[in-house]
């Protein structure tokens, strides 16, 4: 008989069995009566000798069942009925659980997407990120590679199947007279091969594509679709970009992206561009601009690869001391680790915090169950009395709590879905892959596991408590509310204390982050970011001579300055807190050093009026003016930190330095320091002071500067006017990277804002739950002690006495919890120290404020049940009991 047939025939088997037993009893009774017993006596004797009829029937049936599974199913059905009968309790518990499980699941889905999910490339674990170590700096200081270094690494290593280079940049696509600025990556010919992805159309790059004259590009799927309407025969065609013709090699598959940054590159071009000209980048060993990835050979470890490459780097350092002296070893790390490295601590923090919230939720629901359990204690005593084993009661209770937590988990998934959906919009774009966060299979599995685990966790304590109660005692006390077991109250109090303690830890953590965040926002960036629009434009380098390029900007700025609402306009580079940055080495007149040992500092460009428009204070000398043009004397402006570092105690004005950068007109002239300006926060509000020097743009046309336009009103309103002005002057010049300075600042603070926002959210949940837990315990206590309170009042206790008795109890519990919380926090907040700015992890003000907040909330939560107790009418109470 198969088990399916059994399922259908079972009903028959069971009825046969009970009929049979019935027959047996009758036969026995008759036999006994035949021996002379009365019918009544005979029935009783027959039953006595037979044993427990129900139990025997059950055991007989069990032979046909899967005992564990079926009894669990029966327990589950019973549990659902129980919960349905007590809907208010069930909903409270489920909602609390949904909050905890949902938040945990949402954070897990972020962790999963960003940290755990493998990179979308075949055998991604062998993809390595490579760099050279800068030994002139302390600690791990990765530095990009130059082309000649990269070529040497590529040719000489024995541990990689291939090494590929890439470097970001922009490119202007021309089509039908219109232009469009695109993000492009310049990559080595084996780039796609190292990643292990082939084009879906056309061919891969070839080694010849690296040679001068072979400008080749690979299109991304989205660019192919949007700009070339998915033409099937696009491969082999030529496209005009930046004034050159490029051959299209092919199209990459949909969704392919590398590097995994925002925005995704629209196309990849071969390095032929950089190989052209008199002194091409591909032969400049000092031009460190390449990011490098490699695919490890099978059975080669990261350590082996590292020593292999370090050997090469060491040789290069000896061979080319001018450029490579400090880069004598290599850094190797898996690409996955590399791109997730920065976000790891932040996500770990959030995951830790959300786990704490989940623990509070467990404690809270455990408290609910305990209170409910004591109301059901007579039910369980009765079951125990009629023969339910302790294990059966325990199982029944655990099944109930697991069903609760599974319902909570299901609601939690819905909540997590909403949270992830909404929070992705809030999230900092600079966390790689975070935009892909979604609820997938592994997240669902996680949710299920968490639900089961929490169900057991919060269920086990109350269940254990209840299955232990002595049936006779419980039955006697059942309906009377006097003697709520002391032990049970102790457990319940312990749960409330634990909740309060964990809640305080979260509050302190978020309090620290909030205070730190406020400090970050209050940092003076060194310029005035209010109402300033920035934008870049690409004036084709070959289209206009040096002279014309400067004239273009001058004319454009003159036009923009005349717009209504514009206070001033200028241009400079880099925009603070943008991705752009450069450093350049220089020599100081009168202080000769060996080549390769020259100091190097952050470099900027400025047009006349730049410092005024940015409102960067001038501390000494003058800012750039018309005299710092093509025909003027070579000049430079330094900032305060630069002056302090290189000319301490001296007047920097009139000192002369010789920066190593220049354009084809001003190659490397000696420049006189004409002014000292205030320091600005270039990399972010939390960055320290950094020496910086500025060259006049007219004397160093090396990149396209940012327009900076200060307006009296909303700066974004003049955006279209600026675009129109540029188009009017030259239709082929694209305008891009339009943003306000405040945008840049808010982007640079996105990560701390996000952390603060989430942790504060968790802390608020924790605060509410801690309050609810305390409230629940005290309300329950009031109900339990109704008789006692009634008696006290009858004996002359005043309402105020009763009130203070309950509030005192609540306050004592909060105090215990807060005390434990402060002790734990003092240890735990150390983990935060890397994320705090300007305050120590044991900031007394934060500790004091959160402690007071939690105690106040505790008192408020105690007041409601206390007030209810005080309002009791002693007569009614006593009569009811």
């Amino acid at each position, binding site marked *: 008989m198969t088990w399916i047939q059994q399922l259908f025939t079972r009903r028959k088997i069971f009825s046969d*069995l009970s009929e049979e*037993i019935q*027959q047996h009893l009758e036969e*026995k009774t008759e036999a006994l009566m035949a021996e002379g017993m009365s019918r009544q006596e005979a029935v009783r004797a027959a039953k006595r000798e037979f044993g427990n009829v129900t139990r*025997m*029937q059950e055991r*007989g049936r069990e032979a*046909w069942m899967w005992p564990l599974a079926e009894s669990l199913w029966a327990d589950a059905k019973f549990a659902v009925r129980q919960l349905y009968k007590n809907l208010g309790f069930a909903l409270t518990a489920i909602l609390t659980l949904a909050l905890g499980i949902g938040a945990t699941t949402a954070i897990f889905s972020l962790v999963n997407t960003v940290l755990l999910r493998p990179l979308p490339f075949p055998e991604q674990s062998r993809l390595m990120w490579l760099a050279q170590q800068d030994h002139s700096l302390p600690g791990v200081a990765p530095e990009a590679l130059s082309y000649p270094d990269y070529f040497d690494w590529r040719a000489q290593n024995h541990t990689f199947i291939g090494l590929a280079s890439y470097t970001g940049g922009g490119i202007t696509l021309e089509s039908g007279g219109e232009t469009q600025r695109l993000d492009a990556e310049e990559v080595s010919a084996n780039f796609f091969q190292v990643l292990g992805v082939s084009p879906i159309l056309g061919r891969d790059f070839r080694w010849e594509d690296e040679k001068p004259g072979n400008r080749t590009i690979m299109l991304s799927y989205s660019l192919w679709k949007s700009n070339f309407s998915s033409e099937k025969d696009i491969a082999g065609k030529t496209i005009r970009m930046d004034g050159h013709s490029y051959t299209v090699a092919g199209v990459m598959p949909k969704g392919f992206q590398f590097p995994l940054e925002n925005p995704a590159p629209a196309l990849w071009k071969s390095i032929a561009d950089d190989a052209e000209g008199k002194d091409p980048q591909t032969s400049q060993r000092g031009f460190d601009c390449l990011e490098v990835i490699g695919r490890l050979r099978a059975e080669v470890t990261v350590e082996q690869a590292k020593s292999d490459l370090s050997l090469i780097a060491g040789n290069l350092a000896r061979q080319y001391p001018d450029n490579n002296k400090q880069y004598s070893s290599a850094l190797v790390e898996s690409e996955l680790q590399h791109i997730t490295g920065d976000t790891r601590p932040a996500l770990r923090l959030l995951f830790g915090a959300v786990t704490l919230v989940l623990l509070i939720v467990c404690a809270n629901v455990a408290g609910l169950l305990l209170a409910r359990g004591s109301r059901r204690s007579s039910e369980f005593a009765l079951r125990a009395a009629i023969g339910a084993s302790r294990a059966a009661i325990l199982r029944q209770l655990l099944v109930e709590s697991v069903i609760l937590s599974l319902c909570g988990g299901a609601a939690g998934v819905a909540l997590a879905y909403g949270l992830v959906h909404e929070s992705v919009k809030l999230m900092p774009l600079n966390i790689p892959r975070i935009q892909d966060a979604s609820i997938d299979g592994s997240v669902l599995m996680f949710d299920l596991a968490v639900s089961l685990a929490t169900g057991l966790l919060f269920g086990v304590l109350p269940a254990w408590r209840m299955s232990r109660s002595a049936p006779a005692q419980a039955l006697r006390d059942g309906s009377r509310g006097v003697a709520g077991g002391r032990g049970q109250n102790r457990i319940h109090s312990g749960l409330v204390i634990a909740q309060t303690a964990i809640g305080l830890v979260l509050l302190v953590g978020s309090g620290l982050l909030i205070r730190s965040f406020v400090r970050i926002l209050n940092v003076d960036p060194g310029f005035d970011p209010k109402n300033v629009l920035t934008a870049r434009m690409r004036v084709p380098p070959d289209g206009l001579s040096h002279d014309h390029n400067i004239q273009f900007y001058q004319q454009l700025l003159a036009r923009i300055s005349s717009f209504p609402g514009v206070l001033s306009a200028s241009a400079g580079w880099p925009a603070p807190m943008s991705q752009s940055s450069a450093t350049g080495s220089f020599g100081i007149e009168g202080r000769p050093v060996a080549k390769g040992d020259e100091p190097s500092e952050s470099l900027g460009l400025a047009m006349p009026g730049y410092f005024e428009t940015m409102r960067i204070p001038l501390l000494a000398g003058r800012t750039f003016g018309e005299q710092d043009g093509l025909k003027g004397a070579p000049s430079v402006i330094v900032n305060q930190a630069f002056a302090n570092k290189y000319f301490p105690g001296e007047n920097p004005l009139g000192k002369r330095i010789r920066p190593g950068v220049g354009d084809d007109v001003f190659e490397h002239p000696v420049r006189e320091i004409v002014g000292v300006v205030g320091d600005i926060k270039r990399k972010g509000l939390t960055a320290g002071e950094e020496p910086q020097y500025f060259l006049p743009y007219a004397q160093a046309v090396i990149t396209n500067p940012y327009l900076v336009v200060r307006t009296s009103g909303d700066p974004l309103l003049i955006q279209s006017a600026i675009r129109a002005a540029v188009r009017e002057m030259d239709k082929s010049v694209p305008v891009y990277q339009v943003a306000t300075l405040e945008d840049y600042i808010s982007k640079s603070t996105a990560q701390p804002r996000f952390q603060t926002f989430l942790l504060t959210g968790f802390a608020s949940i924790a605060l509410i739950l801690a309050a609810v837990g305390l409230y629940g315990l005290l309300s329950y206590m009031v109900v339990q002690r109704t008789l006692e309170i009634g008696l006290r009042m009858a004996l002359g206790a005043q309402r105020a006495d009763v009130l203070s008795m309950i509030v005192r109890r609540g306050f004592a519990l909060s105090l215990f919890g807060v005390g434990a919380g402060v002790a734990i926090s003092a240890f735990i907040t150390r983990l935060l120290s890397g994320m705090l700015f300007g305050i120590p992890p044991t900031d007394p003000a934060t500790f004091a404020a959160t402690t007071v907040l939690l105690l106040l909330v505790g008192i408020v939560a105690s007041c409601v049940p206390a007030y209810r107790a005080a309002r009791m009418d002693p007569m009614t109470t006593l009569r009811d009991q």
Partner: protein
Amino acid sequence: MMILRSLMREPMHGYALVQHIKQRSNELLQVEEGSLYPALQRLLREGLLKAEWETSATNRRVRTYRITPAGKKHLEREMSSFERMLEGINLVLSPLES
């Protein structure tokens, strides 16, 4: 095993089986009569017995159990292993030879 052995002799219904075992064991085996039924159900499930509703000699509707060929085989196997066990116990417990 006792049940199978008893049913080897003749098919019986539950009550008769209880009485039979009690008599055969000279009332030495005092068990709850009801515990027979779970045992019977297990044997039924394993296919060692089969059961049919019949009318007994006393004109009562009873469920009569018969041993199946599989049951016989099982009994033989069990008996021989039980006998071997008894033999072993006997050997160990037999008076020591000096």
